[in-house]
């Protein structure tokens, strides 16, 4: 039997689980990783279950390398290949390790050579399990079990890899190593991969594109950088880590000015989303950052607030800045990282923070654009 041409995953799934209807379209070329992120209960795991055949499709299809794995059409008998014929390696949140088998037997369960398959030794070593090959899962730590589950999925020579929070129990060092291993295996085997993760760092290091899901629906799809830079809605922004939403009146085109708005503000802006990464620098007292020649004055928009306090975060000091929003909007407290050794300004003093272009949302929460450059010459300084 000749190998089918690698075309990757093409799926449209509608699945009903725990009274939640979940719909998603996915296209993952060989060797690429599609990330899915969203809050708990968004339907991420249900999408994986539908792709794997663990949850029946209410409607849609799952096609892998051109081969139909499952299909459900209204008025027609649903079609589904048995699980064993799908060629899927899957790591679920509960891992599903076989407690009565050793680590080597678990790793080799789906491998052609069983526990003695060369992939078992290779992956066991790469995942730091070579000393544990004779142990059984109940004796392992959470992180070790997660590595066994990943190794087992890869050793089974899958044609599609489905990973549901596969790094959640790993410590920081192993997380880095295992992410790198997954990236190299996916590339080497030209494996289409779907990765569900709460962690943006997992997704940014592995995923080529992401789906942002909430309440069973895909809110936005695209490259992670695009989603982070221009979240389609306020909800998406919240889900990808935007922590503060301010009315336009809270921003200043210049640290010393009191007027807000202006040519750089997209029309219809009701709220501006701020992500910690959009703070362009630590800023300073408005009178100081105003002085010409300072790096910070290059910013087009500023946030001016009052120092509420500071807390030592180890490598930096987080300055809590209260921004009194005009128009009766609630006061917002931002955390601004100060470089180590920087003096903490007294509470109550004014502080201005430069901003990178931030997304702007209308009253309904839809993206209307990003803060643009001020075109008014000489507005600074």
């Amino acid at each position, binding site marked *: 039997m000749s190998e089918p041409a690698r075309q990757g995953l093409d799926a449209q799934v509608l699945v009903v689980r725990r009274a939640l209807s979940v719909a998603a379209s996915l296209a993952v070329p060989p060797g690429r990783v599609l990330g899915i992120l969203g809050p708990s209960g968004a339907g991420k795991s249900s999408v994986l279950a539908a792709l794997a055949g663990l949850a029946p499709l209410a409607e849609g299809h799952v096609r892998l390398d051109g081969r139909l794995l499952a299909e459900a059409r209204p008025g027609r008998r649903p079609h589904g290949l048995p699980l064993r014929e799908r060629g899927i390696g899957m790591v679920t*949140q*509960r891992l599903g390790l076989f*407690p009565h088998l050793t680590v080597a037997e678990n790793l080799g369960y789906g491998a052609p050579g069983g526990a003695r398959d060369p992939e078992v030794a290779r992956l066991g070593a790469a995942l730091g399990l070579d000393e544990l090959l004779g142990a059984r899962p*109940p004796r392992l730590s959470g992180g070790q*079990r997660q590595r066994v589950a990943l190794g087992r999925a890869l050793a089974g020579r899958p044609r599609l890899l489905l990973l549901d929070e596969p790094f959640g129990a790993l410590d920081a060092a192993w997380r880095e190593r295992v992410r790198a291993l997954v990236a190299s295996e996916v590339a080497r085997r030209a494996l289409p991969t779907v990765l569900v993760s709460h962690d943006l760092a997992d997704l940014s290091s592995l995923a080529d594109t992401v789906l942002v899901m909430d309440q069973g629906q895909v809110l936005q799809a695209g490259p992670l950088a695009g989603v982070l830079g221009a979240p389609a809605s306020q909800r998406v922004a919240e889900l990808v880590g935007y922590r503060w939403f301010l009315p336009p009146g809270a921003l200043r085109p210049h640290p010393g000015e009191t007027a807000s708005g202006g040519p750089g503000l997209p029309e219809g802006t009701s709220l501006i989303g701020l992500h910690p990464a959009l703070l362009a620098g630590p800023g300073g007292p408005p009178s100081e950052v105003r002085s010409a020649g300072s790096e910070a004055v290059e910013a087009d928009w500023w946030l001016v607030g009052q120092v509420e306090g500071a807390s030592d975060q180890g490598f930096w000091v987080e300055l809590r800045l209260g921004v009194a929003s005009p128009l009766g909007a609630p006061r917002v407290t931002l955390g601004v990282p100060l470089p180590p050794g920087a003096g903490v300004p007294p509470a109550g003093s004014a502080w201005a923070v430069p901003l990178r272009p931030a997304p702007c949302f209308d009253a309904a929460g839809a993206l209307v654009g990003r803060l643009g450059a001020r075109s008014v010459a000489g507005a600074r300084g």
Partner: protein
Amino acid sequence: MAGLALGERAGHRPGGPALWRLAGLVGLGGCLLVWLVLLGPLGALLAHLRPSVVGRALSAPGALGPLVTSLEASALALALLVVLGTPLAWAMARDRLPAPRIIEAGVLVPLLMPPLVIGLLLVFLAGPATPVGRALGLVHLSASDTFFALVLAELYEAGPYYVLGVAAAVRSVDPELEAQAALLGDPWPRVARRVTLPLAAPGVASTLAVAWARAIGAFGAVIIVAYHPYGLPMQIWVTLEEQGLPAALPFALVLLVVALPLPLLGLLWAARTQRAAQVEPLEVPG
């Protein structure tokens, strides 16, 4: 509040440590008493047996015939239960049957009925004059005073224990493990052999042990449909009726010896294996 909670955990309970220690001792004493009461009949049996009487009773001509009959009938009943009851238990455990609650209630019925009543109803169901009895006659079987009738009565008495026990044992195996095995390429018979059965084995073993004890000790239904050929319980009953209590005791000992070791071994093994296979759940955000 937190300090109080810590203090409570550390043993500073109202009433002082002495009172709690006393309550603990009383509780322990109560548990031991219940255990001793449960073992009381065994103690009484051993206390009233004399080796010479046992030797004489068991060496009488034909004395061990009922034991052989009981062993054969119980082994056959258990084999039939394994062959016929396991698929039913499996399907019940994995919700593969229509109207699962009705099916489960049906399995429970023989368990809830007094064994004597089962015997009476078996006469009406499969007695020689019934359609079932006539159908059995066509294949030269009779459900009245035959070895077949003994096996049938034991099947009814042990069957529900076996089916419900195996269903619980299979249910205790996480279906996700079976799904993983299938995704890794195993067809379902291999999934059953490599994953489900090994993990359900402790529960299946203790179920087999209980079903064995129920089958070999079956009496209520047996006395109605299979007075002959004598099995061990019938031998005890007849000896008691004809020769009195002391004469029946040696055969009671024989029944205990053949009925008890398997359940005890099965239960001990099940407890050990289950402890070894306990996996702590991972804490991953949901």
